[in-house]
């Protein structure tokens, strides 16, 4: 091969790095060829473009978020398995130190930003408009932009693995380690640009759903009539719009340091690295509440539905959600008690960190009281919810231990911390998102996921979880620090590490069962013909599964909380069936390809800046500006569905009253 190509291959394609890179190259190539082949063979290109890429329908955008979140759960999970394999035995050289650094960086970043975030956005999109009786979100076009920014940012971030090198300064990327002098190469730039792009999309989503919930509820639906998942979306969106700007600034300033030579966080010329750490956690701590609050919303819906009871303490549920969203903003410094800010500052943040546990505890008791004397059905969503309670309780208790500032000097950055936050993030967020996925899956696709395979997945994942993480608490006490890539044999850590790795493998088996379950259920899953497979309580279950693209032929009038349940109790469900004479032309947003191209332009800009290529970077930004101007001058972005079309659709669904 020509030497020019070989130089390129060494520098950018990293072909000297070994079989993992080659394998990924081959896998990416095969998957791409496979996708192109399938789309071409089945003539699906037009369908993909018209039905998905240009869509502004919140239900489809939600499904796309869900698919991406599951794929990223796989990528982040594969990273985790590699890390645990490396740590299974002492003095292991399965991974080099450098690769280990890269993999724990991508594992953390992907799980938080590219798995948890799209997963909650998937549920926001799929559920919220249906629960409040709306036909779409307030800004459907912006909603599509949010998705494509996330999508292309995720592509940019994942591209680093096979093109130029992964980031390796961990998911928090503290300077000065992450500054150019200590971390040259494009990896860290990939991290910064990808996070910036997806962060813009997240802020837009926060704005979008707040406006949707405040302005587009069905007539009669007061705030205190809203389902608790919708309330949890309000709480999460409030935190998003307050927290994400801090991340945007933290990484923008670090990007300026790396690409334009400024000195915000360098050691030289007066920079202050701890300023980054503060800004990062001003976002970072609220971020964990952003992802866990929607999970709390899921648990509230699931518990009420499967205990067949009104949620216990609705008002205190709402109050605790809002309290958490406020207090979450005042706890950030507990991530670095060891900074040396002094006893008074540490005391403030320690007390705030303990306070935030109180509203969370209120919620746990409310879920338990809702189950008390309920007629509980042990479905998959309910199983994950019940598993969440003890898991989160243990995670919360160890959190209180970490929040005690003097004691934290002992636990700081040890495996005790690792075990704690995996317990709350997996036990809280992942369990919640899976419960939500199982719960609303029939609403999205019109069939249930297979119960038996789901139980296998549940037990493997749960047992694997405890086997994996309980030993890590002990390892932390025994002095094992996070981010160490190997350890000597005489530390007494060998057995516990091996057990932990076995646990990680068991969790992987659980994930494989979920994949099998989805594939199996596509063909054999129980079809949902009623639209209300769980005997639900809220408005989304009054619609057919999947809902028609305009959602409600006639917008319902809401008179109480759990309105669908009330109507069922009173035998009045027919009132929600549209009558032909009530149907008016329905106002809908038009599809647009521009959000996709805007995401692409951001990708080009990001890619340019990653490699310090200013012309490419600014070319991409020019594309973004062009999209913005075109949008500003656009007037025909909506249309009306004629009455006869709605009547026909509703008649086909057998819903005309």
């Amino acid at each position, binding site marked *: 091969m020509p030497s020019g190509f070989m130089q390129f291959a060494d520098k950018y394609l990293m072909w000297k790095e070994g079989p993992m890179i080659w394998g990924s190259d081959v896998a990416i190539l095969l998957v791409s060829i496979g996708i192109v082949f399938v789309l071409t063979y089945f003539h699906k290109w037009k369908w993909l473009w018209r039905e998905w890429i240009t869509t502004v329908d919140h239900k489809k955008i939600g499904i796309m978020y869900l698919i991406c979140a599951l794929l990223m759960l796989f990528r982040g999970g594969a990273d985790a398995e590699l890390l645990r394999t490396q740590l299974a035995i002492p003095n292991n050289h399965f991974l080099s130190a450098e690769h280990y650094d890269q993999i724990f960086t991508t594992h953390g970043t992907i799980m938080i930003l590219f798995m948890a975030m799209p997963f909650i956005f998937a549920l926001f999109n799929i559920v919220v408009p249906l629960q409040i009786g709306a036909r779409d979100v307030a800004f459907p076009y912006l909603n599509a932009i949010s998705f494509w920014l996330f999508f292309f940012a995720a592509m940019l971030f994942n591209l680093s693995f096979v093109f130029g090198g992964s980031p390796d300064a961990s998911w928090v990327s503290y300077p000065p380690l992450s500054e150019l002098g200590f971390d040259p190469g494009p990896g860290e730039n990939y991290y910064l640009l990808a996070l910036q792009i997806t962060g813009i999309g997240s802020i837009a989503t926060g704005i979008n759903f707040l406006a949707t919930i405040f302005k587009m509820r069905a007539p009669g639906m007061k705030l205190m009539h809203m389902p608790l998942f919708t309330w949890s979306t309000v709480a999460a969106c409030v935190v998003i719009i307050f927290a994400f700007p801090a991340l945007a600034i933290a990484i923008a300033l670090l990007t300026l340091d790396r690409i334009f030579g400024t000195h915000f966080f360098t050691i030289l010329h*007066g920079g202050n690295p701890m300023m980054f750490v503060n800004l990062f956690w001003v976002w970072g701590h609220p971020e964990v509440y952003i992802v866990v609050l929607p999970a709390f919303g899921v648990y509230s819906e699931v518990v009420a539905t499967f205990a067949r009871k009104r949620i216990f303490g609705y008002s205190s549920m709402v109050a605790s959600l809002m309290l958490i969203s406020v207090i979450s903003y005042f706890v950030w410094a507990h991530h670095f008690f060891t900074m040396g800010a002094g006893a008074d500052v540490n005391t403030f943040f320690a007390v705030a960190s303990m306070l935030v546990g109180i509203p969370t505890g209120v919620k746990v008791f409310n879920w338990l009281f809702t189950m008390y004397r309920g007629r509980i059905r042990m479905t998959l969503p309910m199983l994950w919810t019940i598993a969440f309670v003890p898991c989160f309780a243990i995670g919360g208790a160890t959190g209180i231990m970490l929040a005690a500032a003097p004691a934290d000097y002992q636990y700081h950055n040890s495996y005790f911390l690792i075990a704690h936050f995996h317990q709350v993030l997996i036990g809280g967020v992942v369990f919640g998102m899976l419960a939500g996925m199982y719960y609303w899956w029939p609403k999205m696709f019109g069939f249930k996921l297979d119960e038996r395979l789901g139980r296998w997945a549940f037990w493997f994942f749960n047992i694997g979880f405890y086997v994996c993480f309980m030993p890590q608490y002990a390892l932390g006490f025994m002095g094992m620090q996070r981010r160490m890539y190997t350890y000597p044999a005489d530390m007494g850590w060998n057995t516990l590490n091996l057990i932990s790795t076995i646990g990680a493998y068991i969790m992987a088996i659980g994930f494989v069962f979920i994949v099998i379950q989805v594939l199996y259920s596509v063909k054999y899953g129980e079809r949902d013909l009623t639209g209300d497979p769980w005997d639900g309580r809220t408005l989304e279950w009054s619609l057919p599964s999947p809902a028609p693209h305009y959602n409600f032929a006639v917008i319902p009038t809401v008179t109480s909380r759990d309105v669908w349940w009330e109507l069922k109790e009173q035998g009045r469900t027919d009132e929600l069936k549209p009558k032909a004479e009530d149907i008016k032309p329905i106002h809908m947003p038009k599809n647009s390809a521009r959000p996709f191209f805007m995401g692409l332009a951001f990708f080009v800009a990001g890619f340019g800046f990653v490699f310090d290529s200013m012309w490419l970077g600014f070319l991409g930004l020019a594309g973004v500006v062009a999209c913005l101007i075109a949008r500003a001058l656009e007037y025909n972005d909506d249309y009306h569905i004629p009455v006869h079309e709605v009547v026909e659709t509703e008649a086909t669904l057998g819903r005309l009253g």
Partner: protein
Amino acid sequence: MMAMPDAIYGGHSGVTSSDKPLEYRDPNQSVKILGFWLFLATDMLLFGCLFATYLVVRTHTDGGPTARSIFDIPGFTLETFFLLTSSFTGGLSTLAMRNGNKKALVSWFAVTIALGLAFIGLEVHEFIGDVASGATWERSAFLSAFFTLVGTHGSHVTVGLVWMFLTLLQVAKRGITPITARKVFVVNLYWHFLDVVWVFIFTVVYLSGRVM
């Protein structure tokens, strides 16, 4: 112009009523105004973080140029004069919009844009002078934070100018409709917001820099 729909995609947040200002009458438009207020909250926090960073490193000059040595009193006073006046004329354009006076609206927009351009011109001039005297943002943490904070505001103003010009074109072409009324209102919200941020830059950066 498209027919005014009776409802937004959700269909019910309010009926079209004439006792509200024009930009709020159509629920399709008023929801966008709410969305824009929420956006301004995020933008305010963005500036808040930049201010915090500036305050942390404002004395970290590393032996290089200090605030006292580079801030030019006539320069930033004139900038302030132009920007604050443009906010006033922007307000007059909103008033003209509500009165249905297209000609006055377009004129006040033009005046606002001219004042904004004068502000940007002065700021660019100030920055060029600073850089020429060796006060570049690579020199010290203080200068990094100064150029980033004030430059972020300046780039916001630049975006606002392009946006206001585009809005002016739409008003000239389409007249004052519920849609263009909302656009006029929103671009002015943005403009006033940048004015408020400038008041803080004037106080926290320039005035404090000269006296402290």
